């Protein structure tokens, strides 16, 4: 934010940054080789729905669009979490991570075209394997990734998260500020 914006108390909503998202499929291969974690085929997009009709219309458009591209895959599931954020859960065959990322991108472009790009929060792709369950979360506003590995209750497996960063930290642009690795308990697609 510029000096003038600060002085005048203006905040421009931050537009989502998608540059890094498409690096995910290749990083998933490295991740599998290093830790044995494989994609579950589930991925989700989280956004803060705005009030009013305009956003509701776009929400249903996005849903239709994803269902059309799904073919014979299960339809997208729409849910609202306890914080009031909307999650779109997409399930694709586990080896089609590319398709998943493309779908995630479709959600973004629909929202951005109608002026709701700043409402995007994060996207996550689920992984599972011998070390446990894990999500790679993409932060739209930062254009960075971080791992989230929930254990029982509301605790995180920090060791696994750091191990994952070690394994694919060179392939993906990881979030360097650890305080921004916020937990997404019970997120769909995890």
């Amino acid at each position: 934010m510029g000096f003038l914006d600060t002085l005048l108390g203006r905040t421009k909503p931050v537009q989502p940054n998608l540059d890094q998202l498409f690096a995910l499929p290749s990083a998933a291969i490295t991740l599998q080789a290093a830790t044995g974690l494989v994609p579950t085929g589930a991925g989700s997009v989280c956004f803060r729905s705005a009030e009013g009709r305009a956003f509701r219309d776009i929400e249903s458009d996005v849903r239709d669009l994803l269902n059309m591209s799904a073919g014979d895959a299960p339809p997208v599931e729409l849910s609202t979490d306890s914080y009031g954020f909307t999650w779109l859960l997409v399930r694709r065959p586990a080896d089609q991570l590319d398709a998943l990322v493309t779908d995630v991108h479709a959600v973004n472009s629909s929202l951005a075209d109608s002026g709701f790009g700043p409402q995007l929060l994060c996207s996550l792709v689920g992984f599972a394997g011998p070390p446990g369950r894990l999500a790679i979360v993409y932060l739209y506003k930062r254009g960075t990734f971080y791992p989230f590995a929930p254990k029982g209750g509301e605790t995180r497996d920090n060791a696994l998260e750091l191990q994952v960063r070690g394994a694919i930290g060179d392939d993906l642009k990881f979030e360097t500020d650890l305080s921004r690795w916020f937990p997404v308990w019970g997120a769909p697609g995890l």
Partner: protein
Amino acid sequence: MARTRYAPDRGLTARMTLTMFLLGAVFVGFVVALVFILSAVNASNAAIVFFPIVLGLGLGIGSLYYSDKIALRSAGAQVVTAQQAPELHGIIDRICALADMPKPVVAISPVDMPNAFATGRNSKNAVVCVTQGLLRRLDREELEGVLAHEMSHVAHKDVVVMTIASFLGIIAGLLIRFAFYSELFGGDRRGGNNNNGGALPVMLIIMLVSIVVYAISFLLIRLLSRYRELAADRSGALLTGQPSKLASALTKVSGDIARIPSRDLRDAEALNAFYFAPAITSGQSLANLFSTHPSLDKRLQQLDKISKQLGQ
């Protein structure tokens, strides 16, 4: 280029610019007047003018650096970890991720009056504090609206802006006091020595000028504060996309505050400038011009407008 729904409010920007320009103009006028008065007599009184300015600068910088600690101390607030208040942290995490801001320190004040404030000299040293009363009265999305408003204060660096703006008032206030005391006690020391005969009217003039500057800057600072509140409402509502939730939180909070007996509120008034909604005591009719926050009607009106824009 993607379409944007977030048209800036030019009217508000223009009014805020004008207010800050006037504050600057008063400041320049004040300095010119002081220099003029002092150069008209021999400058033996310069120390009396110089000292309040240094003291005022010190106070301003000090309060800027310790604003987080001072505010937390005076609200009796405790910093809480993510384990102690997972819900509150969850909301703030999401707001920070939406706005691409570093996460502030989160604190809870045990007070039952529903309110919230944000302070700290920059977004890396920010503290966001809510009272127990607020947590008890608001639902999660209303709380989100209030926190987005507070995070907008952090993003707009309102603590820094208001501290700099108040600097003029602080100096004028100190000068009034210094001039007054030097009037009272300065005369005796000089005794019958009459070659500094200009001293008495000079201090009187400085005092009068300072009083005028203080009064004008007081009104301008309050006006600026109200505009900053409107700007924070606006940014907060656009950030979450839920202006109506913020509006509903405002009505709940303002109503509750007005209903609480004023005896408890007198303690709270010192903190008003930081608060989400001011603790109003009785006599609201003259309050508008002097208050740090815009009236509830005005705030709701603005939120209505944003809600309409979002729905189109």
